[in-house]
Each structure stands twice: as C-alpha cells, then as structure tokens.
C-alpha cells in the first residue's frame, strides 16, 4: 500500500490563456481532484464583490484550499510542492540553498519575464498613451531574456536538466504569450525545441484541455 495522500478540497480561479495555465498544469501534475472557476475579465468579474472577497487584489490565480485562499502563482506552486512532493513539480531540494535557487528561478519568471511579456502582449497595461513604444521596448526586453534562455537550453533539455519542472511551464507560458502579442520567436531554436518538449508533456495537455473546456462553457456569455 502506498502511503496515504494528503486530502484537501481544491478550487482554482483562472483566466483564459492567463498565467493560471501554469497553476492548472501544477494541479494536473499533482493529480488531486479540483474544480476550476473561469473568471471573465471582459465582464469585469475580477472586480466583482464576490471575487474580491476571495482575492482583494482581484487577481488570478487564486487557489482555495479547504475554503481558504492562497494567491500568487509562486506561493501556490510552493505549497503544492510541499504538500505533494512526489509529484515532481520541482526537483527535490536537499537544503534551503537549493530551495532558494528554485524560488529564484520562479521569481525571475514572475517578476522579470511576466511584466515584459505584458509590454508586448498588452502594452496598454504600461501606458495611458501610445502603445507602440511600449511594445517595442517589450520586444527589446524579451529578446534579452530569450537570448539568455536559449543559451541555457543549449546545454540541457529542461530548465533544471533532463526532467521537466513547473519552471519550464512558467517559462513556456511567458514566451508563447509574447508570440500571442505578435512577437516572433523563430530566431531562438533551443527555445523552439523546449516549447515542443513542454507541449508534449501529458499534464500540460490536460491543463490546456481543461482551460479550453472552461472557456468553451462560458464564452457564449460574451456574445
């Protein structure tokens, strides 16, 4: 008999194509049952009192664990990894220094990649005026980050080595969203290979299917 798994009631608030894709992928990797609630930003649901009671910042993802909310991708990933370590969200860390390196990688994506992607994909997030300069600046920032990632990935298949981790899905989410913003990723060949490797992961495919189904169920409300 395998040791008994921790049991928690899990519900996640997501947005379509948002960075909650990473959260969904983490949940699919863990393999515990969960419910997803798609927030329609177009209808202002993230500013609705019901949602602000869950996350006063009006942001997704929010993971509700046994009725209590946890916000910020990085904190959610860390908690899932601590609770179900054998799922392999992150490589096993033998000490605080190794754990700090994992947090550092996640923090780099969250605080450097993500805001830069925003400049390319939704430049009006960073200006009340003309968006062209923001988009151009976003392209410069993304190029620098992709150069760096491409060099790293020349030496190994995934961010931490031979095995996928949730950091790979977070990086993947960031660069494909810049492509959604019209940014051309073709110069970075190791990144292209990484993309194919990430997209072939079963938990990534399950997360995408789950997100798509949630969207399909509600998109008619926007018509």
């Amino acid at each position: 008999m395998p040791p008994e798994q921790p049991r928690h009631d899990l519900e996640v608030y997501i947005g379509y194509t948002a960075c909650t894709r990473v959260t969904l992928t983490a949940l699919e990797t863990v393999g515990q049952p969960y419910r997803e609630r798609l927030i329609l930003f177009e209808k202002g649901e993230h500013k609705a009192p019901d949602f602000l009671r869950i996350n006063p910042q009006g942001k997704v993802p929010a993971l509700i664990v046994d009725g209590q909310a946890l916000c910020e991708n990085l904190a959610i990933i860390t908690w899932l990894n601590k609770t179900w370590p054998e799922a392999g969200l992150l490589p096993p860390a033998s000490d605080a220094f190794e754990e700090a390196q994992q947090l550092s990688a996640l923090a780099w994506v969250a605080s450097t990649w993500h805001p830069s992607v925003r400049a390319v994909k939704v430049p009006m997030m960073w200006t009340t005026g003309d968006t062209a300069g923001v988009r151009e600046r976003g392209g410069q920032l993304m190029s620098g980050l992709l150069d760096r990632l491409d060099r790293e990935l020349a030496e190994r298949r995934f961010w931490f080595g031979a095995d996928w981790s949730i950091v790979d899905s977070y990086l993947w989410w960031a660069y494909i969203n810049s492509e959604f913003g019209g940014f051309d990723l073709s110069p970075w060949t190791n990144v292209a290979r990484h993309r194919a490797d990430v997209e072939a992961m079963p938990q990534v495919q399950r997360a995408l299917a789950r997100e798509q189904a949630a969207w399909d169920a509600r998109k008619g409300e926007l018509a």
Partner: protein
Amino acid sequence: MASYTLYHLPGACSRVTMTALEQCGVDYADHPVNLMQGEQHSPEFRKVNPRGKIPALLVDGQLIAENAAIQWWLGKTFPAAGLFPAAGNDWEEAQILSDLFWISSGWHPSVRANMMPIRWTTGDPAPVRERGKQLVKPLFEAFDAHMADRQWWYGDDWSIVDVYFYWNYTTAEEGQYDLTGLANLAAHRARVEAWPAFQRALARENAARERMANAA
C-alpha cells in the same frame, strides 16, 4: 562562518536586501553596481549574475539571485533574526511567500513605471508614468487601509516585508507620486525609518555612494 558579498545599488531595491543582511547581523562585503553606466552588462558582473540584475548575493562564492529569494533564504538561515513571522506549517509559510512575491512581481514593476518610465517604453515616458500612478494607487490605498489597526504588516512585529513595502512606496514618491493623505502609510514609513537595521543599511549605502563618486 560563510562569506557574503552583496552586489547592489544605493537606492535600488537592494536596499531591502541590505537591511535583511543588517538584521541578520552577518559580516558582508558590498559592491555597488552602477546601473546608470550599464555596469550590470559588464563581463565582470555577468560572471556574478548572468541575468545582469541586482541584488545578487554570493554565499561562499555561490549566487542567490532575486530579492525575494535572497530574503527567504536569509530568513531560513537566520531564523532568530526575525525577518519573517515564525510559520507553523507549509500553509502559513506559503501565505508569507505570497506576500513577498506579490511585492516583487506586482508592486515593483508598477513602481518602476513611476520611477523609471523609460524602462517600459522607447517612446514618450510621460503616459507610462501616468499609467504607473494608476497602477500603484489602489495598492497604496489598500496598504494604508491594512495598516489602520497595526504597527507592522503582520501586526505587532517588524518583518522584512515592511521594508520591501516601504522601498516601493518611497520609490514611487521619488517618481513624483504624491503620498499625501495616506496617514497610516506615513506612520508606517516613520517606523521603518527608525528601525536600526534599516538605518545601518542606509549608512552602508551612503558609504558605497562615496566610493562610487570617488571612483568616477
């Protein structure tokens, strides 16, 4: 005792990292990196942190990058220093991480739009600064409301998170954001400025500024 070297810039968010080191009471060397002169792109600094960012902490020659990750690691390594409230379990620890990374990924990039709008555009920085004001306004107002019934973010006890918030709102002020009217935030600001480890970090920054001026 391990050796510690902090790469930083006086006034940058590395001020928070430096305050954390001061709070932990460790001996450390500090090297200012002149971002205005592009020193973060120099081959020497790229050897330290290939991402070209500060703060960067070397521990016995090994790098920890990203402010929040450094703060977390110092908290684990020096638990008696009180950088964070004692977490009773993984859930409580995750809530602290949530705050910490909310500041680094939610607050800091928005403050940057106020303080350094040219970081987010190749064009006219004025509408980026304007947007930055829109982004930080609800953050600062929510912070002010949260502080109405407490001394520090977590209640009665100081934590490094207080200094991280402080750095963000004072940096937005340098970027022409008017903090007038946020009385609880103003009281919090005065408390942070009176905190001994913070004052030691400022003194250390000033010494680094002098070295930078002399080298120029």
